[in-house]
């Protein structure tokens, strides 16, 4: 009886301490999410208040299914995510392996690599936009000087070329984060494994393939989850770099939703788009966690 009440005390204390944080998260994250779903089932045009807010069922979702701009945006998002994450994983792995070694200037490399991660995405986007400006852009100047381009190029006028600065900027900005996550995984690998392998006569390549990569798999998967979800949320970078243009040819889903909401003030339709993005992200996360059997460090053994 007494014992139970004391255990109960610990649970009560636990919930009491966690409650404020949970209430905050619930009020400003979970409750709005429910509201989004509710909005998405209504016609709500802030520009046309006389229409009221009639319930229209799944009409917004039907409109999404038949909206070529949405499908385009989804395609752009997927393209952006796949290409940039592949590059980031490759370069990030290299950087992580590098930072895990001892060499002169390692501290400098670690610090330098963190700065792009820490600065505002908006600033990163502006830096790369300036580099690729058609007039005064240093990229054009350098490429012409190196005789790779015959004349300055207008990067942002065609979809194919507009993706170049977008992807470069993302790789530049987020590879450090990827490298850090992978580095943490690398540092968990017992060094004596390498020593044992070296004694057994394994060369560096064999060690990479048969020790590092298999043991790094959990870290790689976690990174993949984080980055995929980030990729599907991409907004700042493209808003600043291309504004989704030319036309809507680089517009990702988040930007399209933002435009529907705050440019066109179509709150019902925009909310439906929000729900779809949420569902996709959630589905992807579930897929990764279930399908790949990733254990995120939730609770200790």
């Amino acid at each position, binding site marked *: 009886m007494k014992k139970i009440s004391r255990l109960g005390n610990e649970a009560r204390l636990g919930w009491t301490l966690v409650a404020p944080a949970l209430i905050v998260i619930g009020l400003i994250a979970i409750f709005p999410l429910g509201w989004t779903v509710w909005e998405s089932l209504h016609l709500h045009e802030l520009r046309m208040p006389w229409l009221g807010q009639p319930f229209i069922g799944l009409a917004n979702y039907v409109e999404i299914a038949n909206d070529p701009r949405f499908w385009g945006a989804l395609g752009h998002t997927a393209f952006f995510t796949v290409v940039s994450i592949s590059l980031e994983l490759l370069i990030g792995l290299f950087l992580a392996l590098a930072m895990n070694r001892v060499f002169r200037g390692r501290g400098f490399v670690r610090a330098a690599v963190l700065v792009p991660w820490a600065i505002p995405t908006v*600033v990163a986007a502006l830096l790369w936009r300036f580099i690729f400006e058609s007039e005064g852009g240093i990229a054009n100047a350098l490429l012409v000087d190196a005789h790779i381009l015959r004349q300055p190029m207008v990067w942002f006028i065609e979809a194919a070329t507009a993706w170049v600065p977008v992807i470069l900027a993302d790789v530049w900005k987020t590879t450090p984060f990827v490298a850090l996550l992978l580095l943490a995984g690398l540092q968990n690998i017992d060094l004596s494994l390498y020593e044992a392998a070296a004694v057994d006569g394994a060369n560096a390549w064999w060690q990479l393939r048969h020790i590092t990569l298999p043991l790094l798999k959990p870290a790689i998967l976690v990174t993949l989850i984080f980055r995929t979800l980030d990729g599907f949320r991409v907004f700042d970078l493209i808003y600043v770099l291309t504004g989704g243009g030319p036309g809507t040819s680089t517009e990702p889903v988040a930007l399209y939703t933002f435009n529907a909401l705050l440019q066109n003030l179509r709150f019902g339709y925009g909310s439906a788009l929000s729900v779809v993005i949420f569902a996709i992200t959630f589905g992807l996360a579930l897929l990764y966690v279930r399908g790949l059997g990733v254990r995120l460090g939730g609770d200790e053994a």
Partner: protein
Amino acid sequence: MESGASRVAQRGQFRAGKWIFAGALVVLMLFTLFPFYWAIVASLTPDAALFRNPSLWPHQIIGDHYRALFGDRDFITPIRNSLIVAGTTTIFCLAVGTLAAYALARLDFKGKAPIMAFILAVTMFPQISIVSPLYLLLRSLHLIDTYPGLIMPYMTFAMPLTVWVLTGSIRQIPRDLEEAAHVDGATRRQSFTKILLPLAVPSLATTGILTFIYCWNEFLFALSFTLGPERQTVPVAIALFRGQYQVPWGEILAAAVVATAPVAAMVLFFQRRIVQGLTAGAVKG
């Protein structure tokens, strides 16, 4: 047994590998640092020179863009806004988050694992999914274009981040120190204030820095929930810089340098701690 020749060959390979490695690293470093270098150079170059013939080396250094930035542009206002919003959010999240993190890291109660899973799930939320209700909510509370109207939405990502990172780092503080304090006669509150809290100061600092950086850099909410220069944060102000005839690149870059400098300084100074904080709890071996 390997033959001598192949061993020599292997050593040669090893050396070649080393050079390729070093070369690739140098290229990557150049790629990483070049945009910063270029932004600083360009922000100090007169517009005319910049657009006529961009050159990697500055020929003429001027401070005009910076003067304009803090004069006509009133860049002080967005900096102040950002400091207030990011600072308040960080302090509030640390205060509330420390309690939650302590409970999650140290207390034994049912529901801990689901709470952690829930918090992690919220960190993966797409921000855009809650823009519409938050906008309607803030509008009905007349909080659009106010500080609370930014601080509240910032909690959506800052709170889970704070709790998650702090829980991870508190778990790394050996538990037996608090147990020793209990045996020495300390109550739970005393072992928290006298033992754990002093030991967690570095973790709190790291978490605070991380949360602050995330808030300082946030763009979507700040763009959606502010109306004009009065309450715009740094990223929004920079992104919306407009010139009369052309893009005012000189001033934009000056602003970029100004917005980057404090974050870069913080990162360089607290590099090791930030890395620890970022990866605590994120990856388990």
